[in-house]
């Protein structure tokens, strides 16, 4: 009965209650959506880092990690491989040869980390093959050994060129076509150079977004270009190996894409003059991200001569992001709810002060203080929860929808990718955040009711009944 009276009491002043419910709804929606947005962003960063860059667990020769010198390969590789194969909780693993080299194209040079891989096994651990934006992944190469290069590295090596061709001008507006045709026939080796040329013919006031799209439209990678890589072999001699650019990958992390290249392990080993069973790194995927630490600790125990690290040790910043975001989530929601609680306290105080006589009557006829307190508290909680429920529902639907379609921030792609973040965000929210927010809302409702309820409890029935 008390909850029923409380619910009815809320609707005594419909407008006032709706305003509070609306405010709570907006506050909870903003809080939950912001949490979803940030979680999606961080999850994506972690996912990308794990599935393109570091995997769940890595194994190295401990000496290799000191200076990453080539001779420190994993000892007893066969034994390690057999042990990993027999360890539960591991989904897949792939060995790699990893060296530093100086790559040189016809127009520029750049330092690279060259990873020698078995392409088929690498597919089971990293998703680089899914991130090929030009050319193709390793497959039946003939002639020169193939190299898959990061998009940013390709740009640094001036293998990303810009050229206006008749074919690409195709469906352009006549006037624009005419202006752009004046630049056709010339190849631009840097984005900046091409942008300046475009601005000269289109005018400085040309729309920034259209300019961005225009530049991308005329960009192309110099696939099949030759790249000579200078390496140091196992004898300490400098060797030169020439590769043909077969594909470009883009993981949306410029830092990774700017220094990483993949070649076949066998070809790299030949150039480095190392044995068939020599590898510098084994990357593993556990069955789930949460199993990574357990798997790493099992391997650490069983492979004491190797250095085994989980992703949390390899990249502690990622792990901190994860934990920090969870704390931040509750701080965001907490701030929103704290602000809202003042609104709720105000409304409930007004509601109590308007009903002094009625509360006095209830106390006179036998409603005890606990029940009066519960009634006021229910009103506060119901008011808060109604708004919060609607806010959570709307934010949930929106997060679910945007989690599938993504929020496109490609206008800021360059800036975001430079710091390792993707430009399409897929908001996500976990069930425990929903439970957490629900609890916080209920707690806010209860805490907000304390002051007004105290006011009600302090009433003297005789005096309260005398009020008009």
């Amino acid at each position: 009965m008390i909850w029923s009276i409380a619910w009815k009491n809320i609707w005594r002043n419909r407008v006032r209650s709706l305003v509070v419910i609306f405010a709570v709804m907006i506050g909870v929606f903003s809080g939950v959506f912001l949490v979803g947005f940030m979680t999606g962003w961080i999850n994506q960063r972690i996912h990308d880092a794990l599935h393109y860059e570091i995997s769940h667990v890595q194994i190295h020769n401990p000496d290799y990690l000191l200076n990453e010198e080539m001779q420190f390969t994993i000892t007893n590789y066969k034994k390690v491989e057999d042990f990993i194969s027999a360890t539960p909780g591991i989904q897949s693993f792939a060995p790699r040869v990893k060296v530093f080299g100086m790559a040189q194209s016809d127009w520029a040079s750049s330092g690279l980390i060259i990873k020698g891989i078995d392409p088929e096994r690498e597919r089971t651990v990293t998703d680089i093959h899914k991130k090929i934006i030009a050319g193709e992944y390793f497959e039946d190469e003939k002639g020169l050994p193939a190299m898959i290069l990061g998009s940013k590295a390709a740009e640094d090596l001036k293998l990303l060129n810009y050229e206006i061709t008749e074919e690409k001008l195709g469906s352009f507006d006549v006037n624009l076509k005419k202006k752009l045709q004046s630049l056709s026939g010339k190849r631009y080796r840097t984005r900046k150079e091409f942008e300046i040329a475009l601005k000269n013919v289109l005018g400085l006031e040309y729309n920034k977004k259209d300019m961005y799209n225009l530049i991308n439209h005329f960009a192309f990678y110099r696939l099949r270009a030759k790249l000579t890589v200078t390496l140091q072999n196992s004898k300490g001699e400098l060797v030169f190996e020439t590769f043909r650019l077969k594909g470009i990958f883009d993981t949306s992390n410029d830092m990774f894409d700017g220094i990483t290249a993949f070649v076949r392990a066998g070809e790299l080993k030949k150039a480095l003059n190392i044995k068939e069973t020599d590898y510098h790194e084994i990357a593993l995927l556990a069955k789930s991200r949460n199993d990574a630490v357990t798997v790493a600790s099992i391997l650490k125990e069983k492979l004491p001569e190797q250095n085994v690290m989980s992703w949390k040790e390899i990249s502690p910043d990622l792990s901190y992001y994860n934990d920090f975001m969870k704390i931040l989530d509750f701080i965001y929601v907490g701030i929103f709810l704290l602000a809202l609680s003042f609104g709720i306290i105000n409304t409930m105080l007004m509601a109590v002060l308007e009903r002094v006589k009625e509360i006095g009557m209830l106390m006179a006829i036998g409603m005890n203080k606990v029940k009066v307190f519960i009634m006021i508290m229910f009103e506060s909680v119901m008011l808060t929860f109604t708004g919060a429920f609607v806010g959570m529902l709307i934010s949930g639907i929106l997060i679910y929808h945007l989690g599938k379609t993504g929020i496109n921030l490609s206008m800021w792609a360059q800036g975001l990718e430079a710091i390792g973040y993707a430009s399409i965000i897929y908001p996500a929210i976990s069930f425990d955040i929903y439970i957490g927010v629900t609890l916080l809302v209920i707690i806010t409702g209860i805490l907000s009711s304390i002051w007004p309820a105290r006011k009600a409890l302090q009433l003297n029935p005789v005096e309260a009944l005398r009020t008009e």
Partner: protein
Amino acid sequence: MNVIDIRNVVKIYNDSEVRVIAINGVSLKVEEGEFMAIVGPSGSGKTTLLNLIGGLDKPTEGEIMIGGINICNLKGSKLIDFRLHNIGFVFQSYNLIPVLTARENVEFIMQMQKVPFKIREKRTIELLEAVGLGDRIDSRPSKLSGGQQQRVAVARALASKPKFILADEPTANLDSKSAENLLDIMLKLNQDENITFVFSTHDARVMKKARRVITIEDGKIINDEKRG
């Protein structure tokens, strides 16, 4: 049998500067089934006396025995609980809960007493029919006239099966026809079901119907008239 036994009750209000003796040595016994009016001019102490009998206020001196229990010794939730189970209240300005229907207003007090649903339901309808509102049970107070609201208040007061009903100027806000009607209902309940009514009033019609009239002036009983 005495339902109410007031022994030498004094009530003094001490404001910062003024000391007011609202009730000055009142002793009074009310027997079960009485239909008693407390009359007197404004400020004579009628409402204060009712508040003291109802346990809403405490006397400065003296004892108030209800059904053999000295309510002056009851405190906090025990006193509230005592009121819930022993005293029915009817207020001058009805004081119904505006968001509840007539049925819910009556039922509410029995819910606080934890009366089972079926008994509660039956008694609510019986009471509302007894006060002539059988056809308005699902109306909210705002849809009822003053007289009808006061009849709901009487039904509510009876719902808890109290030892007696205290009514503070129950007809003061009613027109003469509604007042007459309300009094007839109260009188009928008193006669048929032996329910004790104690009410304060200015209203000559109420005084006329009362079977005992206590006149109070300056906090003292100056006349106690029992009628056949």
